[in-house]
């Protein structure tokens, strides 16, 4: 490892620089590959995340279980229930009394109660039919969706009745015709899987790097490297390169899984996706280096990496929770995160295609972050050496 040290910027010094860098990188790769727990984070966890997000997690409410408290045994009431049952998202079971249904709801055996009161058909004949829907507010995501489904089923039934009876009652009005762009399948998987790239790059770049580097600070092995003829920049570069590669591997796995397993469309060009990811990877690595240089202790570094980088990337970047919904102050916190811009960019590149305005804006911001943070990391590393 001892290489001739020279300060003159001559051809030989460049050659020596590359030589040192390459041997250092080789060392770092070996170190990375030797500890299986590193590979677990760098490769195992991304695979698990892809499977969980792709197959397991969804915001789309399906298979809602409703219990019908049927107090009116008329054919009309049965007909309404049949329409509700006809929805692909709902299935019903019947009980005779509301008390029984309430018990099931309290015990979380069902997602809601459809209460058909005993005067249902009588009131319906007067044009005032009412179905009562009782939902558990403890699960508002499912409950809101189920409310929509039941209302849709009720109006569908009404429409069918009107059609059958040839009723020409004028029900004119505005008809909403909506079209969802960029997500023809209307499924959350389409935006969760691309968003996962952001999470995985943050995981590898910030968390793993901060952890490994903090250990080197803690053990003093970094100082040991610094007293060799190796320049601090070379040390930093050699530390970055292996994790950069692991991050890109994560990207590759996400893209392949998105394409092959989950049929997520990739509207934008692959080159742009890779380029944008590389920029973000540098940002993420720089944050990891900074955290480790400040913390110099593994527990602290890992906690800061999770709290300041990973959790915000999941919660505040617009990954699952839309930033439009949050108060201004929290939104501003979101806009401070590099992950937010990469999130917007990667979702757009996957689902909407190459939107140049957005691309230049987000890439520009990410590049600024990359330069500023790398510079800072370089500064901090040198300071520690003095």
């Amino acid at each position, binding site marked *: 490892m001892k290489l001739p040290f020279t300060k003159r910027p001559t051809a030989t010094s460049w050659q020596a620089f590359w030589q040192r860098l390459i041997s250092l990188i080789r060392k770092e790769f070996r170190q990375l590959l030797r500890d299986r*727990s590193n590979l677990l*984070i760098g490769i195992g966890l991304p695979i698990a995340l892809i499977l*969980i997000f792709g*197959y*397991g*997690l969804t915001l789309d409410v399906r298979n809602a279980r409703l219990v019908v408290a049927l107090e009116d045994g008329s054919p009309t009431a049965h007909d309404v229930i049949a329409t509700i049952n006809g929805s692909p998202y709902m299935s019903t079971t019947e009980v005779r009394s509301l008390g029984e249904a309430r018990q099931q709801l309290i015990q*979380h055996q069902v*997602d809601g109660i459809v209460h058909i009161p005993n005067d249902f058909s009588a009131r*319906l004949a007067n044009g*005032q*039919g*009412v*179905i*009562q829907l*009782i*939902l*558990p*507010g*403890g699960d*508002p*995501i499912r409950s809101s969706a189920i*409310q929509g489904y*039941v209302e849709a089923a*009720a*109006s569908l*039934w*009404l429409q069918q009745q009107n059609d059958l009876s040839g009723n020409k*009652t004028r*029900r*004119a009005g*505005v*008809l*909403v*015709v909506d*079209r*969802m*762009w960029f*997500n023809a399948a*209307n*499924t959350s998987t389409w935006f969760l899987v691309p968003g996962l790239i952001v999470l995985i790059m943050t995981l590898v770049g910030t*968390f793993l790097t901060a*952890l490994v580097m903090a250990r080197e600070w803690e053990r003093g092995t970094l100082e040991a490297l610094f007293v060799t003829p190796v320049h601090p920049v070379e040390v930093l570069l050699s530390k970055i390169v292996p994790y950069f590669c692991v991050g890109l591997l994560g990207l590759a796995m996400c893209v392949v899984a998105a394409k092959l397993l989950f049929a997520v469309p990739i509207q934008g060009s692959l080159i742009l996706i890779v380029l944008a990811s590389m920029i973000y990877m540098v940002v993420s690595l720089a944050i990891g280096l900074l955290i480790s240089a400040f913390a110099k202790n*593994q527990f*602290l570094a890992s*906690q800061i990496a*999770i709290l300041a980088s990973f959790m915000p990337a999941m*919660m505040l970047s617009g990954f*699952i*929770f*839309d930033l*439009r*919904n*949050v108060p201004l102050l*929290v939104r501003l916190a*979101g806009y401070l995160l590099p992950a937010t811009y990469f999130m917007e960019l990667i*979702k*757009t590149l996957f*689902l909407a295609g190459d939107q140049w*305005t*957005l691309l230049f804006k987000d890439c520009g911001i990410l590049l600024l972050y990359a330069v500023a943070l790398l510079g800072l990391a370089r500064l901090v590393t040198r300071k520690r050496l003095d």
Partner: protein
Amino acid sequence: MQNTLIDFLNRLINLCHKEFMVILKDPANRVILIVPVILQSLLFGYAATFDLNNIPYAVLDQSHTESSRQLLARLDSTGVFHRVATLTSSSQIAHEIDVGHALVALHIPPDFERQLGSGAPAPLQVILDGRNSNTAGNASAQIRAIVANFNASLPGATAPALSVQTRAWFNPNLETRWNILPGLIASLSMMQVIMLSALSVAREREQGTFDQLLVTPYTPEMIMVGKAIPSIVVGLVQSSLIMLVVRFWFHVPMAGSILPLYSGLLMFTIAIVGLGLSISALAATMQQAMLYTFVLLMPLILLSGLATPVHNMPEAFQIATYANPLRFAIDLVRRVYLEGNSLATLWHDLLPFVCMAAITMPLAAWLFRHRLV
């Protein structure tokens, strides 16, 4: 007999004291155990919501009539819809949506009022940015509700013969924040507690002091209890802090009482600490302990129902969540906090904690002696 008991307790207190010192002697550690929990519960409390209350929209009104203006006025008066662009041609729609300027674009065709007057359905075209399909679906539902109101106000409109009356228990406005915030009480504290306990043994192993501890008169069981108690205390303190934020900052009404909540949280934390200690006993270094913990934490949190409901998942994943203590902890906290359940009805949430603690605690104690570093 009595002496041995006092002796035992004395030793245990000494050991706990030492463990507390290890956790709390570093000022940075003290900060990292208190500040982030509060900060995160505030931040995520605001961020973690699916309730859409700000919809920037662009409009292309080719009708320019009284009815179209009335419809748009209804949108504007909600306080949720904010017009960001008034367009003049349909070719401008794409740009507004593409750059994310508007979430929704409304297109009112030229013959809008004529259609409306003739009794034929007058189409209102709504274009949604589906990059977050959940947000888009939410916006669409809100537009439909406003349009339905508008239709009902039209001359000659009759109320539909069948209506659905919805009542939501425990959370009348179906606010998603009320669902996620109680979930944080269990999950945020778990993240640090499991890490803390996972590091406790690994740190001593790495520094070589664990062997010294093993040759003292302490039995492995006592060492384990001594290691577990401080982490459990930290976890309960953290849960309490988050609960204070949820109750008094976000004003989520608490239906249940403290006793069942804390009994549940205590048992959950014991199970989690047992898990952490087992990892700790297995890991050779602190770094391994941390990495194992983190790898375990991710699926535990994602498959807990914190942000996405468990019942949305496919059957196989729902079954897999039975192995996840956090799933039951979040369920328990929600049941007690929001629904006011008492301990008697919660045994099915408590049982997994008991099982988990019964497996992990003895395992950890056994591993203390039998794992050779």
